């Protein structure tokens, strides 16, 4: 007998439909799965056998062949347990004719426990969004309820394989294989981090406000304990709220990585990812022979914070260039090529020198000039070119700390950022550009005309600070953001001067000639 059940697999963060065909014929009892299954799909045989038996059915001792079609695409994930088991039940005649017909209209996803109960699996949301269950319903594990609701299809969530079979036979009413609607609890602002927690550091706060307003990347250079991580952790809080579309994108990525909690329907907070500096290239940008999104994709629409930036291996830092440039990562493997979205704001933090005391008011730096320049030059030119704002943080003395202003709260800053973003949205309406930082050369020409007297400023900056012509574009984009923050139509000279104070690492102490 032959049976066919619809299911899905993932490619990148999109799903594609997979027909699970099960054929049972007489012969030596074997059970094989074909159609480029990955290890976890092959292992599903053992789970399926146990689940069928423990659900009170007989497992047919015949020649069983499972084909996952389209056969030329690789399939991974544990969601095939349920469709394979259901297919075997249908093909072996354990289900009635009506039940088999009903099964044909369903889309099945789910991992099976050995006792036959359904366990949540990864990627349910993107699979249900990409593959609509055409008229019929989707069957997903109860643990993926929130994702099913988020995708907006009709679906049922039977607890066990037996429940599903009974429902197919009409022995169970639909209500009993559905969880009643659970109202989503509002995201509670539990110990929200606020910018006013950070005392002093007015310059760094201002730079982060500009970064949030224009989507610029930031490099924080400062001695240990000056508040680099504290500031970075608060950065996501001043970004504009996620749009529906953005929220869906990141929820899909987290679903693929199986990082969505049971109770999360949608992510409402911008992600903040802070991988350790020993991270491998593959973990940072995604990869593996069976590609998975990396930290850059998990930080999509949010913040990627790289502390101890200069301690990352050089090759790891270099792979950041593609996502910083394109807002996506393409991973090419011999078997397939997938693209993950990765548009994030990079906040990098590093010490000024290997010993971390350069510029400290009391401690002495023990590094040689060569060590310092080698440390700083670890951040390559092409990478620095993608960082628009560089800020030096200096330690705050106790007397200053005690009386230092707390500054604006995150809410106040976020309001200004939002206003600036709205101005940009109006400006870039109908284009792909989402913020000033992503302006094309053409757009820079159009939206960043130089005010009178700007030539003298930029010329002086090139002469005095060794600013390259290439970095002028960065200056203009950032100045545009400052103008937007102030609600000005045109860039003014003071905006340019401010941007130039956030210029990259100092030259190596070369005197003026």
């Amino acid at each position, binding site marked *: 007998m032959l049976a066919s059940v619809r299911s899905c697999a993932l490619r990148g963060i999109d799903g594609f439909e997979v027909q699970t065909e099960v054929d049972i014929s007489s012969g030596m009892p074997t059970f094989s799965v074909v159609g480029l299954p990955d290890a976890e799909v092959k292992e599903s045989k053992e789970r399926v056998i146990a689940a069928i038996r423990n659900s009170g059915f007989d497992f047919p001792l015949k020649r069983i062949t499972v084909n996952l079609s389209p056969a030329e695409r690789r399939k991974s994930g544990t969601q095939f347990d349920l469709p394979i088991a259901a297919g075997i039940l249908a093909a072996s005649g354990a289900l009635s004719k009506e039940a088999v017909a009903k099964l044909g209209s369903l889309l099945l996803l789910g991992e099976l426990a050995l006792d036959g109960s359904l366990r949540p699996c990864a990627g349910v949301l993107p699979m249900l969004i990409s593959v609509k269950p055409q008229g019929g319903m989707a069957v997903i594990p109860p643990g993926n309820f929130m994702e099913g609701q988020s995708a907006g299809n009709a679906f049922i969530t039977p607890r066990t394989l037996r429940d599903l079979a009974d429902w197919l036979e009409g022995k169970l009413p639909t209500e009993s294989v559905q969880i009643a609607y659970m109202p989503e609890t509002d995201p509670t602002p539990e110990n929200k981090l606020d910018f006013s927690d950070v005392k002093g550091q007015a310059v760094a706060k201002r730079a982060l406000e500009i970064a949030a307003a224009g989507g610029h990347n930031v490099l924080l250079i400062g001695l240990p304990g000056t508040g680099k991580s504290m500031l970075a952790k608060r950065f996501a809080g001043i970004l504009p709220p996620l749009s529906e579309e953005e929220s869906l994108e990141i929820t899909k990525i987290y679903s693929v990585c199986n990082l969505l909690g049971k109770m999360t329907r949608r992510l409402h907070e911008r992600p903040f990812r802070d991988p350790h500096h020993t991270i491998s290239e593959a973990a940072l940008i995604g990869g593996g022979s069976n590609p998975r999104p990396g930290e850059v994709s998990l930080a999509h629409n949010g913040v990627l914070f790289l502390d101890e930036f200069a301690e990352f291996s050089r090759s790891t830092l270099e792979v950041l260039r593609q996502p910083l440039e394109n807002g996506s990562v393409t991973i090419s493997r011999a078997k397939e090529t997938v693209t993950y979205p990765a548009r994030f704001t990079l906040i990098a933090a590093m010490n000024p020198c290997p010993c971390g005391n350069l510029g400290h008011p009391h401690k002495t730096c023990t590094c040689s000039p060569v060590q310092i320049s080698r440390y700083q030059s670890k951040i390559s030119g092409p990478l620095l070119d993608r960082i628009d704002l560089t800020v030096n943080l200096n330690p705050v003395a106790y007397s200053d700390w005690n009386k230092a202003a707390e500054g604006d709260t995150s809410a106040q800053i976020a309001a200004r950022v939002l206003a600036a973003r709205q101005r940009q949205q109006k400006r870039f309406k109908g284009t792909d550009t989402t913020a000033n930082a992503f302006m094309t050369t053409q757009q820079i020409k159009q939206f960043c005309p130089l005010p009178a007297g700007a030539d003298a400023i930029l010329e002086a900056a090139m002469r005095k600070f060794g600013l390259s012509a290439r970095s002028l574009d960065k200056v203009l984009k950032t100045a545009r953001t400052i103008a937007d923050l102030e609600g000005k139509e045109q860039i003014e000279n003071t905006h340019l001067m401010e941007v130039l104070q956030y210029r990259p690492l100092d030259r190596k*102490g070369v005197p003026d000639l």
Partner: protein
Amino acid sequence: MSVSMQERLARIRINAFLYLRADWLARLIDIFGSAEEILKQNAETLAQQAQMNPSTAAHFLRDAFAIDPQEELEKTEKYGGRILIPEDEAYPQALRSIKEAPVALYVLGQLPSKHQACIGMVGTRKITPYGRRAATTLAEGLAEAGAVIVSGLARGVDSYCHAAAVRKAKPTLAVIGTGIGRCYPAENRELARAILQHGGAIISELPFNKPPNAFHFPRRNRIIAALSELVVVVEGEAKSGALITAKLALEMGKDVLAVPGPIDSPQSAGPNNLIRDGAGVVTCVKDIIDYIPEPELFDLQTPSTDKEVQQTAQDLPDTQKRVLEYIGSQEVSADQLVEALGLSVPEAASVLFELEVQGFLTSRAGLYSKNKF
């Protein structure tokens, strides 16, 4: 005394052996009569006659024959330079008279005349803002008075001293620790070019393309000490190359002056110790000029006091003046300015930008300090 071309080439050859002091090389020339004659010997006779270790003698001959003196000459001439030996008239008299006079001296640019007072200015590579102000102010004053600053083109104090002279369009003399075909550190390439452009000179006793090596630097310090009427130590750690130069100068019977500094600054430990041991104290350009042994030999103007900067500072807008006043002799962050003077961040940023571009301030790791006193 004229020297044959063959002998000149032979001198360039023996000069390439860096592991024998120059006075030893001179002794070898004395024993054998000429450099040419030395190179005709084999390692054994060389070792025997000059009482050298045989392996050193072998190494000596190997190094001497490893370079092509003709090529050295050609490359140097291509750069517009020359290679002097002590018999040449242009060879500096001050060098000829020391025990370890370089056997060959590669020269780019114009050596100072005997009417120009040469002042050695040396110090640490890890310069502090205080050292920068001191080096700049003193070197500019000396250059204007007509003195030639002699230093080593290293990072830090050396480069600030050379740069001050260059800014005043005055000659300065750099004695470098690599061959003259190289520039170390590379970031001083621009400075080296400017030195030659303003009538200064870059000299070295090392073969044309010799890369930097730690032992080259203390060695070249004797040349700085020898060429200078006196040596000023601007900043230096308790054990530093600057102090080697000072010690060598003292051994040559020259005065050593030191710029006093804060007692808790490691970079001022060197000069402060020198002062304790009796070195002259430098607080202004006149202090240095007063120490020149025979000032009547040189064309020197009495130094002007540094009114120029103060004058321009008077014309600055109010906020800029307030910022300069607040910074004083400290290193100050933009955050401190914002807090103390009640400026907004954008205001502070544009004021700092203007002051930096006009040359009043220098920023380093986010800290601003004044360029001059």
